[in-house]
């Protein structure tokens, strides 16, 4: 199986550990991973802030870079949702504006074979026990795009439950948005910060060492809030699920 990693621009630039973890994890599971160097950004920030014409060239570029792979794995719920849910809308919109079917046809091949990481593990590889070891108490935040756009359901929990040494504790108000929301975090920073603080308070109430999620953008907001609230705050860390799943007894991560 020829699988491409679409790491996302945020992970590439700020969270390379997540990328290394995905490579390590998939390689351990026998998947041959390629990282096409011409990849950059899916265009989600442009789309969601109202600059959809700026998102179009990035969507075309994504399609050109990834169209020949059998599967595209994305360790980000929101970027995977951009491809799966919003690329078709870019195509529909071009059609409605009288620009024909060209964009829709160009984007169509990549849409169904783009998978968020946990989806790829459970649905495509058919594994829930990835042989990981992570001796910590963990609470899981299901991010909005994973929850409501991709409908990841309990896939991430199945994966976490099979990790040796890991104690999974439920997060109160888990399904409520953490308040990141891309440019929302800056445009409505007060509301965003209040939502983030509530998320961190709920996470602290679980007594977990680690809060994990499948999207580093949300974790950047939650983790940044945790850091500001002080070192004694719990959970002490915000960690991407890929880093937990990649962790083993021989080589502990995070």
């Amino acid at each position: 199986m020829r699988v491409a990693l679409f790491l996302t621009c945020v992970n590439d630039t700020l969270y390379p550990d997540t990328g290394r973890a995905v490579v390590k994890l998939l390689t351990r599971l026998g998947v041959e991973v390629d990282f096409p160097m011409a990849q950059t950004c899916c265009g989600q920030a442009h789309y969601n802030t109202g600059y959809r014409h700026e998102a179009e060239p990035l969507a075309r570029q994504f399609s050109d870079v990834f169209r020949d792979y059998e599967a595209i794995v994305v360790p980000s719920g929101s970027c995977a949702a951009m491809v799966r849910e919003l690329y078709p809308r870019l195509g529909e919109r071009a059609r409605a504006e009288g620009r024909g079917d060209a964009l829709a046809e160009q984007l169509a091949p990549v849409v169904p074979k783009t998978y968020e990481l946990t989806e790829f593990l459970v649905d495509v590889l058919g594994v829930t026990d990835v042989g990981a070891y992570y001796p910590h108490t963990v609470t899981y935040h299901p991010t909005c795009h994973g929850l409501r756009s991709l409908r990841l359901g309990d896939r991430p929990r199945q994966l976490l439950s099979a990790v040796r040494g890991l104690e999974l504790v439920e997060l109160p108000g888990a399904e409520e948005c953490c308040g990141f929301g891309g440019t929302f975090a800056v445009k409505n920073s007060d509301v965003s910060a209040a939502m983030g603080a509530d998320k961190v308070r709920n996470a602290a109430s679980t007594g977990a060492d680690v809060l994990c999620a499948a999207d580093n953008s949300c974790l950047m907001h939650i983790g940044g809030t945790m850091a500001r609230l002080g070192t004694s705050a719990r959970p002490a860390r915000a960690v991407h699920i890929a880093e937990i799943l990649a962790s083993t007894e021989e080589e502990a991560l995070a």
Partner: protein
Amino acid sequence: MTGTFVGMPAFPSAARKALSNETLRGNLRYATHTIRAKRAGAVSELDDWAALREAGREIKDQALRHLDRYLLQMEEAVTAAGGVVHWAADADEANRIVTGLVKATGESDVVKVKSMATQEIGLNEALEAEGIHAYETDLAELIVQLGKDRPSHILVPAIHRNRGEIRDIFTREMSEWGRPAPEGLSDTPAQLAEAARLHLREKFLRAKVGISGANFMVAETGTLVVFESEGNGRMCLTLPETLISVVGIEKLVPTWRDMEVFLQTLPRSSTAERMNPYTSMWTGTRDDDGPRTFHLVLLDNGRTDTLADRVGRQALRCIRCSACLNVCPVYERAGGHAYGSVYPGPIGAILSPQLRGTASEIDASLPYASSLCGACYEVCPVAIDIPEVLVHLRERVVEGGPVVRQGAKVTLRPARGHAAERAAMRAARWAFSHPGALRAGQRLASGARRLTPRTLPGPGRAWTATRDLPALPPEPFREWWRRTRQQEAGRPAPADRGEDQQ
């Protein structure tokens, strides 16, 4: 907050004010979380909820597609049943019509059924200016009116008030408007309800004119429908001699049979009840029962313009259940007043900038009053894709484009204040279209990472005021990939060639 919404500040600053009010935040959090949980329970009882939701969406869409035809059918049926139909293009015209009708009766007091349409057009204020007193009879509207306040929720207009605050308002204000509150009034729900009942009863028994809105209009019979929980609406609809109903044109459904769907979805979505306690339906007039005179004012006020928008028109499906408000994390913290409209929350964020246009500061800021978490779309009983419309309206704000205003096609210019952002978005798109440029930027950032400040200037300050920035890694992923693949293969890394092929 009293008076009109004109000159409202943009959403972020209005929200900031609400966030600093701990009592308000506590009231809202408690109320929205309670009703949210109850609604989820009421909805889960129905196995065919998804089918009902889809049916509701289809019925409303079908009605909107042929709205011109159904409105004429409605007019014909109302007229045949002894009612009089008036057409109002905007708020001013509607207020003129209603004021004229009340004046013609010679009365100076009217009782009102809770109605969003009359709030939208500022009817109470318009009547007051002509010396006519309008008394709200819905309990929550009464609290808002007595408190010289503004509603902050579609279904629970006084959601921002707790019991203690309501007791204080009743004790202080009721005597100004009619029967005073009983001596030693406590803040128990039963005592508060009894005080309101006694106060309102006098109004019902004296009223000669009633004013209402409607949740639905049925075109085939000319029937209007009101859903309510207290029975106060039914008193207003049946006791006065003259009844005037002001209804938005989008409230129309073609047939009686269509009501089957909404009789199930509206109560469960709004109050989490299997069926709402009072469903009143009225068709024209009868000599021996109910009002002798019935007027229906059909209100446009931006609805036809909204209908012209292919994406935005789905907002007109709204049946005002307010489920989207109760699940919205932004509404929960910012409160209803921050939205600067009688329609707060997610639905308000897409409805107001369409009905009123995006020219004002508040209307241009409303499409951004959301983290796009999608909870509103998930609970909407008529499947309005609110996040989709929000993004659509954001584009209208930042890029301008063609819209229909007052029936005429106009091209909007981009709103002011977005020039720097637009330039940044274009620059980012350019960099992302050239992987080599992205790589150069990453290298530059990694090289300078020890110099990266903890707090940022400009718009970035909004981030670092409450959150730490992540530390920049010494090496972006693509450098690691290139380096390690090179070691594995025992040969030089592939050149940059191929990266900039786009």
